[in-house]
């Protein structure tokens, strides 16, 4: 309080203010108030309410970088110093974004924990002043209010948010391996209660405005407006400002109480939280849960719990201190760097680098209403694409239609859609058994059975009915696109679009271009993928492209390990313990044993020894016994409808026994097993970059993490090599090469990196 007053009085000197302000050249005097034009923040006075507007130039979002912070402090100091002003409103001039968070680059440039701690402390100090403001400050939120943006909002005295889908609140720092470092860990528990605060901080989830209102995170909702005297977004922001001003006035006049009516449950919870024993129990349960889920691979969640605990048990000062220190420590961790790398990669893979396609795809056709086909249809119709879904049988088609409906209906159950929206989206889907309407299609995506002759057959059939400009995309996981395109009359229009199952959940789309694929075709495919909400990597054609090719040697090693007598459950524990979200044996079941067999046979032929290791015989025998994985109810595990627990398939014992190989004790420790799996993956990924299948390491990392579940805490195979050290990876490979042979031979690019420690995939 004292501090803020002091600074406030300094700000009163006009000349002083001008000297301090950087980048402020012109002053803008208007009738209502004297405005100082700043780069990111402006304010005007309406009556006795100051309206502070965030609007970073040349950017879609507002972030809290150093400039913004200093401008904000300047502005607030002026407001606090001005006797004419009794309250303030903070608002963004950008319709889709309040403040999206702190500037990641600001953090990335820190080289020591102390630097990062200082960043956190600066934020803490700024928000403390705001929290202790004698003049009520209202945050008027429209669009994303995340991370530092939410910490800013919860330091204000009152929060008003637009009730629309764009307005989300959250503290996603944990997803970057960090913690909310500007007071968030201390204020959130007091505001929404400890359990809800933990949930927000540990999952990093986005919370919609109406939910936030119920939680007590915001005080008032404002409905978005439709078209009126101005475009809807513009007028909605204006309206939000008008409403916020009336609330700011009401708060200054003490007509509006800051006390929130708590429900009975809330009162009970907050009472329970006053009992130390209950608090200890909560910390314990949450910590156990976190340890179980993260396997100790992610330091941020545990530190968050720790910091919250410190604040609640030892008081605010210790809490804030712990917050800033732990923030500094986390910012320097490998995990945080890996996760931030993924964040940047994801941003890159959400762009279309191939230009604007000549023709916008409006009519899509999907061949095959199986799991993949229906999944592709689902993510297309809900973005407003008219989609023809063609199958050969009524039974197959209706199964696919039901899958799409169920996918949409599940969203209704989660209140992400209304039943009316579901119906109207579902009307974009046209199921059929013939090629009617294909003459209007702009793109056909085939998801028929993985068999070259069938793919050839449908390609010819489709080319007979589609218009000249229509693109033919093949959803295949391993068949080379140039082989599929071989029978095409216009190979420049043929491209691969490799979706991952389940399509509506998996974010990745791998687009495969052949030598002949035209740039416009690629641009079109990327545009469709982006519309479907996918993260996209574009790779060159070749057996297994990128993702399948990396997975295959890894799976081959997995088979080998199983043959050497490691129990599938043990193997799953080892791989998830390394950070894979799904265990290796379970992954085989999920992908489908028959698919795995197909792929490993095909790629085995193409790559020979390097894909050696386990024998395909294992998969073949499983297929012959009908152990196809989850889809057939049996694989390495037995699956039962409705039950999440799975038990080992005891019938596998005899198959594994018949193919048993002696384990090599020198490379069979738990750690060795983990590294055998991972280094083969990494080696193959680097080889893909070396051979030009991949264009950039970033795409390789995104593909591996989002498509194959490569441990996110390692940031992807390339980031892993950078952070772990190429030499260490090569050492491991050499060790296993000595025992097993060629399949572990490190590729040249990896050797180059090992020989020259200054060589990094990410500079």
């Amino acid at each position, binding site marked *: 309080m004292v501090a803020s007053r002091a600074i406030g009085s300094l700000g009163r000197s006009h000349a002083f203010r001008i000297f301090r302000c950087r980048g402020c050249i012109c002053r803008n005097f208007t009738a209502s108030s004297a405005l100082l034009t700043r780069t990111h923040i402006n304010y005007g006075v309406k009556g006795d309410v100051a309206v502070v507007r965030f609007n970073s130039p040349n950017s879609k979002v507002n972030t809290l970088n150093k400039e913004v912070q200093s401008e904000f402090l300047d502005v607030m100091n002026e407001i606090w110093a001005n006797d004419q002003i009794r309250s303030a409103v903070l608002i963004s001039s950008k319709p889709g974004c309040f403040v999206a968070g702190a500037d990641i680059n600001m953090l990335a440039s820190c080289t020591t924990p102390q630097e990062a701690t200082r960043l956190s402390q600066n934020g803490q100090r700024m928000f403390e002043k705001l929290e202790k403001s004698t003049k009520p400050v209202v945050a008027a939120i429209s669009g994303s209010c995340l991370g530092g943006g939410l910490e800013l909002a919860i330091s204000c005295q009152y929060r008003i948010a637009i009730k629309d889908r764009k307005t989300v609140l959250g503290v996603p720092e944990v997803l970057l391996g960090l913690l909310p470092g500007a007071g968030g860990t201390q204020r959130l528990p007091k505001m929404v209660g400890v359990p809800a605060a933990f949930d927000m901080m540990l999952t990093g989830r986005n919370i919609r405005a109406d939910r936030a209102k119920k939680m007590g995170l915001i005080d*008032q909702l*404002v*409905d*978005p*407006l*439709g*078209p*009126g*005297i*101005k*475009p*809807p977004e513009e*007028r909605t922001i204006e*309206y939000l400002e008008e*409403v916020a001003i*009336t*609330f700011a006035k009401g708060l200054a006049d003490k007509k509006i109480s800051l006390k929130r009516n708590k429900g009975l449950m809330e009162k009970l919870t907050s009472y329970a939280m006053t009992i130390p024993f209950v608090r200890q129990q909560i910390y314990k349960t949450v910590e156990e849960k976190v340890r179980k889920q993260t396997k100790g691979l992610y330091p941020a969640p545990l530190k968050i719990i720790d910091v919250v605990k410190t604040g609640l048990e030892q008081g605010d000062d210790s809490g804030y201190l712990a917050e800033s220190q732990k923030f500094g420590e986390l910012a320097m961790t490998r995990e945080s760097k890996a996760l931030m790398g993924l964040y940047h990669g994801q941003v890159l893979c959400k762009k279309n680098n191939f230009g604007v396609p000549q023709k916008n795809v409006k009519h899509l056709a999907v061949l095959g209403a199986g799991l993949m086909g229906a999944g592709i249809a689902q993510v297309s119709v809900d973005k407003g694409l008219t989609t023809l879904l063609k199958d050969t049988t009524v039974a197959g088609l209706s199964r696919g239609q039901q899958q799409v409906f169920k996918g949409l209906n599940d969203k209704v159950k989660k209140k992400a859609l*209304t039943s*009316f929206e579901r119906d109207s989206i579902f009307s974009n889907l046209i199921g059929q058994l013939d090629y009617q309407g294909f003459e209007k299609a702009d793109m056909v995506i085939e998801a028929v059975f993985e068999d070259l002759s069938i793919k050839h057959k449908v390609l010819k059939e489709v080319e007979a009915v589609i218009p000249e400009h229509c693109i033919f995309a093949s959803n295949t996981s391993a068949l080379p696109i140039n082989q599929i395109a071989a029978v095409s009359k216009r190979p420049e229009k043929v491209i691969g679009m490799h979706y991952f199952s389940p399509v509506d959940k998996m974010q990745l789309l791998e687009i495969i271009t052949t030598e002949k694929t035209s740039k416009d075709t690629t641009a079109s495919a990327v545009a469709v993928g982006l519309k479907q909400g996918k993260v996209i990597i574009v790779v060159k054609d070749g057996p297994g492209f990128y993702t399948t090719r990396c997975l295959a040697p890894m799976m081959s090693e997995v088979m080998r390990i199983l043959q050497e007598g490691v129990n599938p459950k043990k193997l799953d524990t080892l791989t998830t313990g390394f950070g894979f979200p799904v265990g290796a044996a379970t992954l085989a079941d999920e992908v489908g044993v028959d698919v795995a067999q197909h792929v490993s046979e095909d790629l085995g032929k193409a790559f020979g020894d390097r894909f050696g290791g386990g024998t395909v015989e294992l998969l073949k025998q499983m297929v012959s016994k009908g152990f196809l994985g989850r889809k057939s109810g049996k694989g390495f595990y037995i699956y039962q409808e409705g039950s999440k627990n799975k038990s080992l398939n005891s019938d596998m014992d005899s198959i594994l026994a018949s193919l048993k190989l002696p384990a090599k004790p020198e490379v069979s420790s738990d750690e060795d097993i983990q590294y055998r799996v991972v280094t083969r993956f990494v080696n193959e990924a680097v080889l893909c970059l070396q051979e030009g299948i991949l264009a950039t390491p970033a795409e390789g990392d995104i593909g591996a993490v989002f498509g194959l579940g490569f441990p996110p805490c390692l940031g992807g195979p390339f980031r892993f090599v950078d952070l772990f050290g190429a030499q260490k990876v090569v050492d491991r490979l050499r060790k296993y090469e000595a025992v097993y042979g060629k399949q572990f031979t490190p590729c040249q690019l990896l050797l180059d990196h090992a020989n020259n420690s200054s060589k990094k995939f990410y500079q």
Partner: protein
Amino acid sequence: MTSILTYTFKNLSATSKWALRSSVRHLSCSSQLQAAPAAQTKSKKTLAKPNLRNIVVVDGVRIPFLLSGTSYKDLMPHDLARAALSGLLHRTNVPKDVVDYIIFGTVIQEVKTSNVAREAALGAGFSDKTPAHTVTMACISSNQAMTTAVGLIASGQCDVVVAGGVELMSDVPIRHSRQMRKMMLDLNKAKTLGQRLSLLSKFRLNFLSPELPAVAEFSTSETMGHSADRLAAAFAVSRLEQDEYALRSHNLAKKAQEEGLLSDVVPFKVPGKDTVSKDNGIRPSSLEQMAKLKPAFIKPHGTVTAANSSFLTDGASAMLIMAEDKALAMGYKPKAYLRDFIYVSQDPKDQLLLGPTYATPKVLEKAGLTMSDIDAFEFHEAFSGQILANFKAMDSDWFAQNYMGRKTKVGSPPLEKFNMWGGSLSLGHPFGATGCRLVMAAANRLRKDGGQYALVAACAAGGGHAFNLSTHEAKGGGSP
């Protein structure tokens, strides 16, 4: 509708017996028009279409519109409709057997009388040989009844049609829950005691929680008042403007009532109660009083309140629509011609109540008229905010260009010609019955003031309707 009309139009060229007859009549009619001296000073032109029959409203009545829960509360919808029909019979003395068809509009249906038009007609003593049907289209249900009548007459299928509307909001169908209904239906089918018992064993107490009729739009789950508040905000209509407009409506209605201008009202002897002869929702207040009210939908910062919204109303209306030749032959002096009309619809979320904005320019263009040609505007007032938002939308080039695909705005109606005898805000708004009230008010105002053209418009849950009326081309129409 238009397709029916064009179809008729084409048919007319054929020398079918009635077409010949009709065109002969038409000739006679227009000759009368020519022969008539220009009694009215500002008679401009005829809106008649070549080879289409002229259609007139002979007269129309309504029972007093009452606040829900007052004198009509123990009645059923068909009782109100019957009273309106009886009133019409009494007012026009039309022989019952001349009526070819009866159409009523209603919104919230009483399930016992789902074809309320037929039940009311039988009860009112119309011939049981006269067919009747019921239409529904939100707040323009009786507009739909009237235009259906116009279509039937224009196509030569009928000569005399009664159109009306009814709404009883004192009572609404509250149902058992779906689970309870399902159990009851299954019980009907259960054959053995065992089956019945096993069904009954599935009963849970929450089955008894009733299902209320939805106040919200089905498609958006938003109530109309909520949407009106957002609409008012989108057009930056202030609370004060809304209150002022509502006050105007009540004051004008009061004046009209006192001066006896609301001549379409017929008294209704309510069984077991006193005769009702006046609308009871007209309550001129003061701006200070109105300013005290809290917002009714968007709390606490909204602007739509109980005082600047139309209230829940019970009421019924009916009108006699005829082919002009028939009316003249029967010696009637029709009140007005029913001319061009249009239905529109738009986004049910953000433009739920903007129907008049979209419909007005279209119907004017159809008739070749401009805003300045219109002598009387009768717009349905769902909410003050809705009327004022429509004014602003009609007066905005930006809105016309970006949302209506028009080059320029149509302009907002001049207030001195607008709803001069009150509107739905003050007189009340029984959903299904409002359309006929609007048309009769417009026709009566033209007669009273010697105007020639009237424009009726209404919003209707994402839809809208506009109707042109005209008077003194109506030859044989007597003095008002």
